[in-house]
């Protein structure tokens, strides 16, 4: 019984939040890694692309809510998501046409692209704040919980509760679907194969008749979709505030780099590694150990490795260690 309690406590406070957060990071990191792999630069505007996508979705969600359209127990935002994706694709293609294409024709160095994306980031930053404002926005509706902590306790008779929010469930399921579709697309379709070819060797791809502008366009469309989905899921699960998306950029890049920039599998693994290391290393293990160990060994202290103040330091420590010993990341991405 005690062991079960320990397991439930661990699931409730570490596994469930870690999985949800990890999925959100993984989706974000996939977008970053695709841009890096195919367009060959680190896109600093990604966090704000997520914010833009989430913003469009929120606006349409509000419109749906006022019209009385809802998805029953699921959040209305899921219905608005396709429109949000379309809006973000529009914005991504627009910035590519007006900004990035110019530098591509110049054959500008990657570092110039990075600086350009920084400029795009500030532009998007401004657009989002201009339209929806810098404050907190709430748009989650529908059933809040799959299982409530109290109901779980009554059902099982355990001392510890387990809560799973609807948004956490949706996050994980959506992430699995999106990743499966993405891999099928990259590996099985003609367009996906041409994208991978372009990523592996640009000149050879050109020689074999692949149209680079098309590859670039598809890449932006996929990245915009990924960014919107990640942004909406994050906003549903936590709350939407433009500034938090800007801050999300750091753990997302950490995930992509740890996994190996340019490698999609690496991005997913990196997302979960960063998320779980943030939660587990700063977790106070007292409760779990008190349940799990015999009474004589039960700890008095909190058994907390690091105070939660350091949770961001944790992901960067991991990043540095990986870069020192495996500069291409855990899954052999391109050298940074």
């Amino acid at each position, binding site marked *: 019984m005690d062991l079960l309690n320990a397991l439930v406590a661990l699931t409730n406070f570490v596994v469930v939040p*870690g999985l949800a957060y990890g999925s959100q990071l993984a989706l974000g990191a996939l977008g970053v890694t695709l841009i890096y792999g195919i367009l060959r630069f680190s896109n600093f505007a990604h966090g704000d692309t997520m914010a833009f996508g989430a913003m469009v979705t929120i606006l349409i969600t509000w419109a749906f809510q006022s019209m009385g359209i809802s998805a029953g127990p699921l959040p209305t935002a899921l219905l608005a998501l396709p429109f949000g994706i379309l809006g973000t694709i529009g914005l991504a293609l627009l910035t590519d046409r007006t900004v990035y294409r110019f530098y591509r024709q110049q054959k500008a160095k990657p570092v110039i692209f990075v600086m350009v994306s920084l400029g795009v980031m500030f532009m998007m930053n401004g657009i989002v704040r201009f339209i929806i404002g810098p404050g907190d926005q709430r748009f989650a509706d529908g059933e809040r919980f799959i299982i409530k902590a109290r109901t779980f306790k009554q059902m099982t008779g355990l001392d510890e509760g387990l809560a799973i929010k609807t948004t956490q469930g949706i996050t994980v399921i959506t992430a699995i679907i999106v990743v499966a579709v993405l891999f099928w697309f990259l590996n099985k379709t003609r367009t996906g194969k041409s994208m991978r070819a372009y990523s592996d060797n640009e000149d050879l791809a050109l020689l074999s008749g692949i149209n680079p502008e098309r590859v670039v366009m598809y890449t932006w469309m996929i990245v915009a979709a990924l960014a919107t989905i990640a942004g909406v899921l994050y906003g549903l699960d936590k709350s939407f*505030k433009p500034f938090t998306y800007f801050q999300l950029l750091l753990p997302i890049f950490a995930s992509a780099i740890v996994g190996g920039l340019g490698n999609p599998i690496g991005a997913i693994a990196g997302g979960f590694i960063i998320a779980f290391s943030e939660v587990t290393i700063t*977790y106070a*293990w007292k409760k*779990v150990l008190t349940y799990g160990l015999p009474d004589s060994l039960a700890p008095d202290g909190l058994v907390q490795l690091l105070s*939660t103040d350091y949770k961001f330091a944790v992901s960067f420590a991991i990043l540095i260690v990986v870069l020192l010993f495996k500069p291409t990341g855990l899954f052999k991405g391109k050298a940074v």
Partner: protein
Amino acid sequence: MKKLLMATAAAALTAGTAYAGGHAKEVKLGVLFGFTGPIESLAPAMGDGAELAMEEVTKSGKLLDSATVTSVRADTGCIDNGLAVANGEKLVAEGVNGIIGGDCSGVTGAILQNVAIPNGMVMISPSATSPGLSTMEDNGLFFRTSPSDAREGQVMAEILKERGINSIALTYTNNDYGKGLADAIQSSFEEVGGEVTIVTAHEDGKGDYSAEVGALASAGGDILVVAGYLDQGGLGIIQGSLDSGAFDTFGLPGGMIGDSLPANVGADLDGSFGQIAGSDSKGAEIFAEMAKERGFDGTSAYASESYDAAALFLLAMQAANSTNPADYVGKILDVANAPGEPINPGELGKALEILAAGGDIDYQGATGVELIGPGESAGSYREIEVKDGKNETLRFR
């Protein structure tokens, strides 16, 4: 701001000539607040509050030999020690008889050490709440009309104890206010025999608080006390704790009391409780009314404390029959506390008369002033419980 200053000065001047009857004497009070910087939105109402008391006294014509009271405004920048000290010295050079200020705790300490003590100048701060100022060596020259955060810690500990709570988990917003308050709550609660299972900081403006909530939940405790801000990290922590079933009831200090919290969290917050500085004295209403007439918001934070600070200066001068800091400093506690006739805002003229006749007053003012210990407000707090999605006042402490 400049125009406002000019207008105030002009108003004070005309008021002076009109009512003072050949102004026999002039009393100058320095108003040293952060008119620029982080609390620049609060400072104008604070300045107006202080000047309201000065005007009232000048109009009554009963201070000393029908003296006029003039306000000299100066800026602290709230966090700029250099600016604050320079302006404090400037005020002394201009011959002020007392300084109302500073406002933020850090600069207040700096002005006290570098200006007030060397010059023997008296300071009454309306808004510096840091517990550190209670123990700072001040040669008896420093007073404040706001309670120390240490006092809020004691009040919270009392409330917790009375509700039969023996252990708390404590999280605070990672800044001076949060840290100071958390220290105060922890030490007061441990003094009355309570147990604090964990003290952990949280950053404002983050989306994800699952790591913090996980740590807090693991440490356990009867309730979770959140010394944060209601529209910032404090809200995120409470939401996260409720979602994961970590805590059901929350202790809410002043920064967490507001209408938006119950509205955002919903029915789950019912039963949580806390306290915020505030008094049930009649004075607060009267003051708000007076402020409205004069064209500023009397309920703005620390405006009423500023009125009281100015009033205390002038009443103490009357009681000592002198405008010399060394003479009147000893009278400040006398006029502020019992025994004597209770004095509300708007009754400063009456108070001056009583003092002139050698009587005793108990200045209540806009905040129910009661100075304790090293010359700081005893601090009355409203005890609040969330019921049916609303903050309800249970009683005053």
